[in-house]
C-alpha cells in the first residue's frame, strides 16, 4: 500500500544508510556529548570522494552554528546566565568551532574562509558566505571577467554543497553571483577596477546586513504599541534588535519567550531582554496555545523566506503560527532581504532535511525513533506581514520581489 507521507520513506532510507555506515549510537542523545565530539566521531566517515568535507552529513552545520551562537546547551546554561549579568555573552569565544578551522591547509579554500567568518556571532551566514566569496576574488589569479566568474561559480557551488541545509548560505551565494553576472567588465575601464568593485561590494554587504537590521527595527516600531504582549519564538538577532529598539524608544511591552527546545535559544533571548529591563516570561514550547489569548502579536525571525512568501524557521514556528492564526493574532516575521531564497516547499517534507541532535536528558532506547528535524515551513497564509529592509511586505509580495530580483 502507499504511504501517506513520502518523506517518511525517504527519512527511513537515510536512516538505513546511516545505520549501515555509522553505528546508530553516534546519534544517541547522551548529554555529555558536545558538538566537537560529534564532529570527531564523524571524521572517519569522511573518506568519500566528496571534495567538500561537511563534518557530519547527519547534522546540519547551519544549526550547529546557530546553537553555538545563540543556544544554551544544558550545562553551560547556568554558567552563562550568571556570566550574562557581568559581561556580554557575545564575547565568549566558542571553543568548539576551533576544531573545524584548525587545519587551515596550505592552499586557499573557500570553505575554510567561510568557516572563519562564520565564527563571528554577529555576522549572518549569508554575509559570511559573501565575505568568503570576496576572499576568492582577492586570491584569484584570473585575468578576465569570464575566468573570474567561472572561478566564483565553482567556489559558490562548493560552498552551497558544503551545507545544503543552510538556506541563507545558498541565498547569499546566489545573490552575490547574481550581482557578479550583472557586473560586466565592460562597464569599467579594465578588469582590475571591476574586480575591486566586486570586492568593495562584498565588503559592503556586511554593513548592509547590519543596516538591514536597523531598518527592520525602525519599520516595526509602528506595530509595537504600549501595553502589548509579544510572543517570540527562538532567538533571532533581528527580533532582538526590534525589541531592543522598542525598549530604547521607551515603549511599554512585555515579551513571552518560548523555551526553544532543543537549543533553548529562547532562554538566551530572555537573558538579553532581562538585561534591557523588558518584562519577560518564559514558556515551554508546548504552552504556546495556553498563553496565546494573552498575546497581542507574534514576532519570529526566519532562517529563510521562500518564494511562496512562507518562511522556514526553527522547529515550532509553524505550530505557533497556526495557533495565532486560529486565535486571530497577527504573526510578524522579521527577516533581512538576503534571506529570500529561491525555494518553493509544498509541504513540510518538501525540503532537504536539516537534522541536529536532541538532548532528552535521559538515554533513549535504540528502538525509539527521534524526529531530529531542526526546522519547519510556515505557509504564507498563516503570516500577516514580513518586515524586511525592502519595506513591510505582505507574503504575496515576496515572490514578486524574488522574481524581479532573479530575472
Amino acid at each position, binding site marked *: 500500500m502507499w504511504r501517506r507521507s513520502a518523506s517518511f520513506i525517504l527519512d527511513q532510507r537515510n536512516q538505513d544508510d546511516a545505520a549501515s555506515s555509522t553505528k546508530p549510537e553516534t546519534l544517541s542523545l547522551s548529554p555529555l556529548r558536545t558538538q566537537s565530539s560529534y564532529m570527531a566521531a564523524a571524521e572517519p566517515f569522511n573518506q568519500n570522494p566528496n571534495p567538500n568535507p561537511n563534518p557530519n552529513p547527519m547534522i546540519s552545520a547551519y544549526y550547529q552554528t546557530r546553537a553555538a551562537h545563540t543556544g544554551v546547551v544544558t550545562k553551560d546554561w547556568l554558567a552563562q546566565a550568571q556570566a550574562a549579568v557581568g559581561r556580554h555573552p557575545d564575547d565568549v569565544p566558542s571553543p568548539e568551532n576551533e576544531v573545524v578551522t584548525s587545519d587551515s591547509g596550505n592552499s586557499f579554500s573557500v570553505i575554510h574562509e567561510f568557516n572563519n567568518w562564520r565564527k563571528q556571532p554577529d555576522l549572518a551566514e549569508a554575509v559570511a558566505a559573501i565575505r568568503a566569496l570576496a576572499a576568492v576574488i582577492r586570491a584569484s589569479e584570473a585575468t578576465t571577467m569570464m575566468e573570474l566568474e567561472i572561478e566564483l561559480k565553482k567556489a559558490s557551488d562548493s560552498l552551497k554543497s558544503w551545507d545544503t541545509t543552510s538556506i541563507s548560505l545558498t541565498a547569499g551565494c546566489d545573490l552575490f553571483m547574481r550581482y557578479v553576472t550583472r557586473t560586466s567588465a565592460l562597464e569599467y575601464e579594465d578588469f582590475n577596477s571591476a574586480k575591486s568593485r566586486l570586492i568593495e561590494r562584498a565588503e559592503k554587504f556586511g554593513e548592509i546586513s547590519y543596516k538591514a537590521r536597523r531598518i527592520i527595527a525602525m519599520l516595526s516600531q509602528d506595530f509595537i504599541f504600549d501595553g502589548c504582549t509579544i510572543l517570540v519564538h527562538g532567538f533571532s538577532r533581528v527580533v532582538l534588535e526590534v525589541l531592543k529598539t522598542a525598549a530604547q524608544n521607551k515603549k511599554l511591552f512585555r515579551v513571552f519567550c518560548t523555551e526553544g527546545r532543543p537549543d533553548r535559544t529562547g532562554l538566551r533571548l530572555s537573558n538579553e531582554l532581562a538585561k534591557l529591563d523588558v518584562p519577560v516570561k518564559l514558556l515551554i514550547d508546548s504552552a504556546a496555545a495556553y498563553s496565546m489569548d494573552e498575546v497581542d502579536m507574534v514576532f519570529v525571525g526566519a532562517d529563510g523566506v521562500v518564494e511562496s512568501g512562507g518562511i522556514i524557521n526553527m522547529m515550532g514556528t509553524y505550530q505557533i503560527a497556526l495557533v495565532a492564526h486560529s486565535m486571530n493574532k497577527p504573526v510578524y516575521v522579521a527577516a533581512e532581504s538576503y534571506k529570500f531564497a529561491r525555494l518553493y516547499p509544498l*509541504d513540510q517534507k518538501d525540503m532537504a532535511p536539516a537534522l541536529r541532535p536532541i538532548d532528552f536528558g535521559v538515554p533513549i532506547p535504540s528502538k525509539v525513533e527521534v524526529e531530529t528535524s531542526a526546522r519547519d515551513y510556515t505557509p504564507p497564509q498563516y503570516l500577516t506581514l514580513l518586515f524586511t529592509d525592502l519595506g513591510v511586505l505582505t507574503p504575496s509580495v515576496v515572490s514578486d520581489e*524574488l522574481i524581479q530580483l532573479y530575472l
Partner: protein
Amino acid sequence: MSFFMGISDFLEQGRKTVAIALVQRDPEGWRTSAFTEMTLVRATRTTAVFTSRYLTGYGTLQGLENTLGDISAEIPVDTVELRRVAGAVTLNPVTQLVVTGEGSCCIMSDQSNLTAGTPDASSILKQASNTVLQPNGTTEASPEQPVKALSGQALKAQKKAEKAARRAQEKGDATTSTTSAATPKPGAGSSTSKAPNSQASQHKRSQSTSQKSENQQLPVRPRPSTAAREPKRENKQVSFFAHLYGPSRRHTLDGVPKEVHPQIQALGLQTSSYCVCGSHARCAAMLLALKCVVQSYTTPLGTSLPRHLSSQHLSPQLNFLKSCRPFSVSQANAIRWLKNVIATLDPSTPEPTAKADICTAIDTFIRERLTVADQVIAETAASHINDGDVVLTYAKSAVITQALRTAKRAGRDFRVVVVDSRPLFEGKNTARALADDGIDVSYSSITGLTHAARGATKCLLGAHAVLGNGRLYSRAGTALVAMMAKRMDAPVVVCAESIKFTERVALDSLAMNELGPEEELVGSEGEGEQSLHGWRDKEHLQLLNPLYDVTPAEYIAVVITELGSLPATSAPVVQRISAGAQEIV
C-alpha cells in the same frame, strides 16, 4: 471497384482537383497525417495518382514538421475499400467518398457541406477517421465553369452571390436546425438555385473579402423565405449563458475566402474537431501554420510587408481559424506577439530577408516559450514528486504528462490517479501514455472523485490560462478536482507556461467561457432511451456544454512557470514579464 467509380465520377464531371486527407492509424487511433488539395493526374485500374503543391505533416503534435513542395501520392486501389458515409451521402450522394484501407484512409469530397453539424454524420465520420475535410471552394473546381462567357464584372457579381448564399445557408443551419431535410441539396448547379437567398447576408462580416462589391446589392429584409418555411422553434440557448453563444463552430470549408492558406484550412478543421486540442498544441500548430503562410506570401505592389502582411493577409487566416474554434489565451498572446514582430520590421528590409526573419522569430518563439518552457516546468514539477507520492491529475495536459515522465525517469516511485470526465475523455490519453511509461495509473471518472482523491498527496493540474487574479482557467471539472485536493490536504500544483498568463480577470466561470457543441453531450443513437437524440425538437430541453471553469486561487499552492515557481497571487508579475519579453524577443 467502387473507389474507381468514385474517381471516374470526378473525371466525368470534368474535375481535376480534389481534397484529400491521408489518415494513418497509429496506436492512438486515426490521425490525419496529411491534408492537401490534390490534382488528379491519372487513374488506372490499380492506382490513382495525385499531385499537390502542399503536403503538410501535422497530426502528431510532437515534431510538427512541414514540407513545402511538389509531391505526388499514389493510392493503391486493390487494398482500398469504399465506404459511403450515411450522413454525408444524404447531403451529397455523388462525390462524398471515404476510402479505407490497410493503415490508410482517405476522405475525398468536393464542394459539399459535409456534416455541417449534423450529428449522425459527424459521429460516423469521427468513427471513420476522426477527421472531416473539405476542399477549398475555389473557383477552378466549381461547376460554374460554363459561365465564362459572362463579362468579368458579371462573373464577380455571380461569385459574390454564391458566397453569400453559402453563408446564408450556414447561418440558417446555425440558428435553426441541422436536419438534412431542411438543408437545400447542394451539389452541381444548386448554387444558382440558391441565388434568391443570397441577399440574406447583408450583415457585414469581417471575413468578407469582397466588401467593395457589397453596395451593389439592395438592402432586403433578412431571410424572409427561411423564416416563412421553418416552423417557430424554441430557443435552445440557455438564457443565463446567452452572452457566451457565438456563431456555431465551423466544420466545413464552405465559403472560405480564397486567401486562406491550405495549412490554415486544415488546422481550422483539426481544431474544430479536437484533432488538435489543448492550449499548447493549438498555439504551436497555429504558429507553424502561420509560418507557412508567411513563407508563401508575396507583397503586392504599392505596399510594404509590415503594413500589408498582418492587417490584410493574416486577418482572413486568423478569422477563419477563429470561426473554427475561438482562440485560446496562448494563441491570442502568440498572435499579439507575431503582429508586433511584423509591425516592428524595418519597411526597407527586402522581402525574402523579412520573411526569413519572421520565420526565425516564430521558430525561436516556439522553442523558447513552448518547447523549452515545458521542459523547465516539467523538471521543476518533477522535483516536487517524491517517493511514495500519489499524484492526482485531471484530463490531459502535455506538460503534466511530461513532468510525470521526468519524475519516473529520475527513479521516483509514485502512483498517478487520472480523473476524467465526459464528453471529451481526454484523460484516457494521459492514462494510456503514463501506463506505457511504466507508471502505475488508476483511471476514474469525475463522478468517483471523492473515492479517487483519497490518499492523494499531490495534485498536478494543467492550465488553459492563468488569470490576472491568480485564478486558474482550465478544462471544466478542474475546479472540482482542486477543491477536493485541497480538502484532502494535497497541495495543488499548477503547471503553466508564461504564455498562458493573461491580464483578464474572472471571478466565476460564467463571465468568460467557451461553449462546446451541445451534440457532444447527446450520446450515440444506439443508446436508445439513454441518449438525448433529437433534443432540438424536444420542448423544454436545453443542453449546455461549457468547456472551461475557474478555480479559486486559494486552492492553488503553487503555479510553476518557466520563470520559476510562484504563488497564484503573483500571476500579474509573470504576465507583465511575459508581455515584456514578447516585445523583446
